[in-house]
């Protein structure tokens, strides 16, 4: 089935929050801290502005606790006495004219008595979360290992650059506060509004508008803007719209956690893993936000898709006075898997082993266990996944060709790199159980069905996949399935649209709720198509004005056990597995790297919709290419100084090759339609594959991303290789 809303988007008729008609509204904007840490000494309103024309909101206008409810209750809605990061919201202003409120924001001075700020996470003593995974006896295994290879790796922050910036509208409908906007998690927003505004759930209604990209950047941050718009709306009694400019969005909202990962790996001389000792540090920024969960996923994936009897992974998330970091596709796994997969190639280089054979030796086989002791017995041949990538990419032939090419070319070098990796879908451990996700499928009077969930569409294909699942389950045509707007007045909490869970887990609820609907309509489980439609219509004739609804609540699949205190057991119901290759060409004159071919092979259970699935892989890969080569956050006082699209660069169509995608299918019994989660997996692999390729091509040894031309040139100079290769005529 083609994307069901494609034509609406292609014709420009899809209406995002800033496209909606709105009568008599005020534009809202935020006045922010200029300093990374300190006490607010004064707030000065410039003379010459008629402030009576503006709605002004500060922390005293907050009816409930001054807290944006999330995991912890540590982040204020508006700073009261202290500020902990540049751009921290202090005041809110609103006015009918957008221009006037822009000028007004410039006319308020937040005077901060500065205090020393912590800006280097590598040395921050302020730990917000510690986690540890232990398996076997790492200390002894390392001591006894014939070979030990160490390495330290770093990944930088990444900005989401969703093409639609963040935005919210807030207004009162009677005594119900309505908030509409771009978001991934309507119920997170409800919870935040209820808490800080001291409102009962029945007095808060949140509606997700078509969302122009999220990638995690609209997971927790929208709650802030929702609260800002709501506070202005409540104070003024008028609708309020807040739309972030691109520069503000880039500077003031969350980004991927920067990370530092240290590996000490014990092996036999022929490359079998004996011990993995891994340390992970991530920068949380000024507030907790979701850092504990990012850290959790980071450490769970840190040891890679390999078998090893002795593993210790110690992780900590620390506070700094940077703008808080938050969810971004991959959620910790890209960071630790960059380190792990680059380290595999460093090991191969150190031991003079083939990088492919090293992986072949260690890739998890059926029945072996992960670092948390999870038995992998899903029937997937992980070596076959890798072999398919090697086959499609022509890996071996290319390696030989490159050797010739590099020996004869004056200034160009080519290389091909590999990464094998994995990604657990759904919330970690007991997370899905704790979410208690619920979903409903209603039978409408005309015989069609309506899927009601809080799982939103942001381009990843929710509307289409839910339609396909419901239609397939009940034997209906896609036109007979409608997906309800994600309006918390109508839809149950199916959990946040994150963690690659929407198809696998929430899709499973669609199937079960459809089954429940069928039963309530008086049919047996085999009924399909017209029989279903007729039964629904008949039910409505017999129960005029009634509601016919099938429900489903999340049930943990059998055999999944997780211990949160020891961090052992089944971290995820299912892992998706992948092998990616990247072929690069480096111009030694400029040290610019181009990816000239990319192959992405993965096993994600059944592929429900090939076009959508391929699109998810290609999109994730290109984000990974950007993160590896050109996306760099430049910091000033812990805030992004290059907060423009001219100086924070994401790939254009001309910067990337066609991304060649292949799927190996192995149905997952507990995923909707046999599917596993897919959305985040593709961003775990590109960075290490590319950097491994660059190392192959040039002989440099990058340990951090992005590998910008400047960094690569420096590395080559240090290694003295570049000078000899590039600077003499052949």
């Amino acid at each position: 089935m083609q994307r069901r809303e494609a034509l609406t988007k292609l014709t420009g008729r899809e209406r995002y929050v800033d496209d909606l008609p709105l009568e008599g509204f005020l534009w809202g904007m935020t006045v922010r801290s200029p300093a990374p840490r300190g006490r607010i000494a004064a707030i000065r309103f410039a003379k010459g502005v008629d402030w009576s024309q503006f709605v002004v909101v500060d922390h005293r206008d907050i009816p409930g606790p001054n807290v944006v409810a999330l995991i912890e209750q540590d982040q204020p809605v508006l700073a009261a006495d202290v500020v902990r990061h540049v751009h921290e919201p202090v005041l809110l202003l609103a006015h009918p004219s957008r221009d006037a409120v822009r000028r007004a924001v410039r006319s308020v001075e937040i005077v901060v008595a500065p205090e020393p700020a912590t800006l280097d996470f590598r040395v921050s003593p302020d730990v917000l979360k510690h986690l540890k995974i232990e398996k076997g006896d790492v200390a002894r295994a390392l001591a006894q290992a014939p070979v030990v290879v160490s390495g330290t790796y770093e990944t930088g922050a990444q900005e989401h650059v969703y093409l639609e910036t963040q935005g919210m509208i807030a207004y009162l409908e009677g005594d119900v506060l309505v908030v509409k906007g771009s978001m991934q998690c309507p119920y997170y927003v409800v919870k935040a509004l209820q808490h800080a505004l001291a409102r009962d759930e029945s007095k808060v209604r949140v509606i997700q508008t078509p969302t122009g990209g999220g990638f995690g950047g609209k997971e927790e941050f929208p709650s802030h803007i929702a609260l800002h718009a709501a506070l202005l709306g409540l104070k003024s009694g008028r609708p309020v719209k807040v739309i972030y400019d691109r520069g503000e969005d880039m500077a003031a909202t969350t980004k991927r956690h920067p990370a530092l990962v240290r590996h000490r790996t014990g092996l036999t001389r022929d490359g079998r893993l004996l011990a993995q000792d891994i340390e992970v540090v991530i920068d949380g920024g000024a507030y907790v936000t979701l850092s504990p969960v990012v850290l959790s996923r980071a450490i769970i994936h840190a040891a890679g898709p390999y078998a090893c009897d002795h593993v210790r992974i110690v992780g900590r998330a620390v506070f700094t006075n940077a703008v808080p970091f938050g969810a971004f596709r991959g959620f910790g796994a890209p960071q630790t898997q960059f380190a792990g997969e680059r380290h595999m190639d460093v090991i191969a280089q150190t031991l003079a082993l083939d990088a492919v054979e090293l992986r072949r030796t260690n890739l998890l086989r059926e029945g072996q266990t992960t670092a948390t002791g999870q038995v992998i017995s899903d029937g997937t041949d992980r070596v076959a996944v890798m072999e398919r990538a090697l086959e499609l990419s022509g890996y071996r032939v290319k390696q030989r060709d490159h050797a010739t090419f590099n020996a004869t070319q004056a200034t160009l070098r080519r290389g091909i790199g590999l990464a094998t990796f994995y990604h657990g879908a759904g919330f970690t451990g007991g997370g899905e159980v704790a979410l208690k996700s619920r979903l409903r499928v209603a039978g409408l009077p005309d015989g069609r069905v309506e899927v009601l969930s809080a799982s939103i569409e942001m381009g990843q294909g929710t509307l289409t996949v839910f339609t396909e699942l419901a239609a397939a389950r009940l034997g209906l045509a896609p036109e007979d399935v409608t997906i309800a707007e994600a309006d918390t007045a109508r839809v149950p909490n199916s959990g946040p649209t994150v963690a690659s869970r929407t198809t696998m887990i929430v899709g499973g609820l669609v199937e079960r709720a459809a089954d429940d609907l069928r039963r309530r309509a008086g049919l047996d489980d085999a009924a399909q198509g017209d029989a279903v439609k007729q039964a629904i219509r008949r039910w409505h004739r017999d129960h005029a004005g009634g509601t016919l609804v099938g429900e489903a609540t999340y049930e943990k699949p059998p055999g999944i056990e997780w211990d949160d205190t020891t961090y052992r057991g089944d971290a995820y119901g299912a892992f998706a597995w992948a092998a990616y290759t990247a072929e690069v060409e480096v111009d030694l004159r400029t040290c610019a790297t181009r990816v000239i071919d990319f192959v992405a092979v993965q096993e994600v259970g059944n592929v429900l919709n090939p076009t959508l699935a391929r699109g998810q892989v290609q999109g994730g890969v290109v984000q990974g290419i950007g993160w590896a080569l050109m996306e760099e956050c430049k910091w000033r006082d812990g805030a992004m100084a290059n907060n423009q699209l001219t100086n924070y660069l994401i790939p254009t169509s001309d910067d990337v090759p066609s991304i060649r995608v292949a799927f190996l299918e192995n149905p997952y019994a507990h995923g909707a339609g046999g599917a596993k989660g897919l959305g985040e997996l593709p961003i775990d692999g590109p960075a290490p594959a590319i950097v491994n390729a660059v190392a192959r091509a040039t002989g440099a040894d990058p340990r951090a991303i992005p590998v910008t031309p400047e960094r690569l040139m420096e590395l080559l100079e240090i290694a003295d290789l570049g000078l000899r290769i590039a600077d003499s005529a052949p």
Partner: protein
Amino acid sequence: MSDHSAIRNPQSAISMTFTLNGSPVSVEIDPVDRLLDTLRYQLALTGTKEGCGEGECGACTVHLDGLPVNSCLVPSYQVRGHRVDTIESLDPRALEPFERCGATQCGACTPGVVMTAWWIGQHADLLRTHTIRELMAGNLCRCTGYDGIVDSVAEALRETGGGRRET
């Protein structure tokens, strides 16, 4: 209707007429208005999107006298007497290859992408000197990784018989 643009100063307002999607339109604009603002907020043609305000992302692409331009960089007063075409004027039937080949995911970049792609389709001879990827490089997309877009353009060109198979 709420004021989306600068505080209106009647003394500096400019009356102008231009051809919009094939029909003449008369508006009063403020000199500080960008074509993007006039289209979206004054004329309620919200198909054209603002992604960056600096001419980098192409989400605001419209045709000005038949050429794709960033409407965030066009002062509204400059279109007086000229021809502007927006996404709203496109025949949806021409979009079938884009549906089929996965050109859109979240849709935020899509109108701009389609406007540039449509123009390429009308100038297939450009593919003698340019690749599709080079011509689309002014339209940033964060969702698709570009294959869906490039495949769609190539497919659309194939179907109209124009241009060689080139990505």
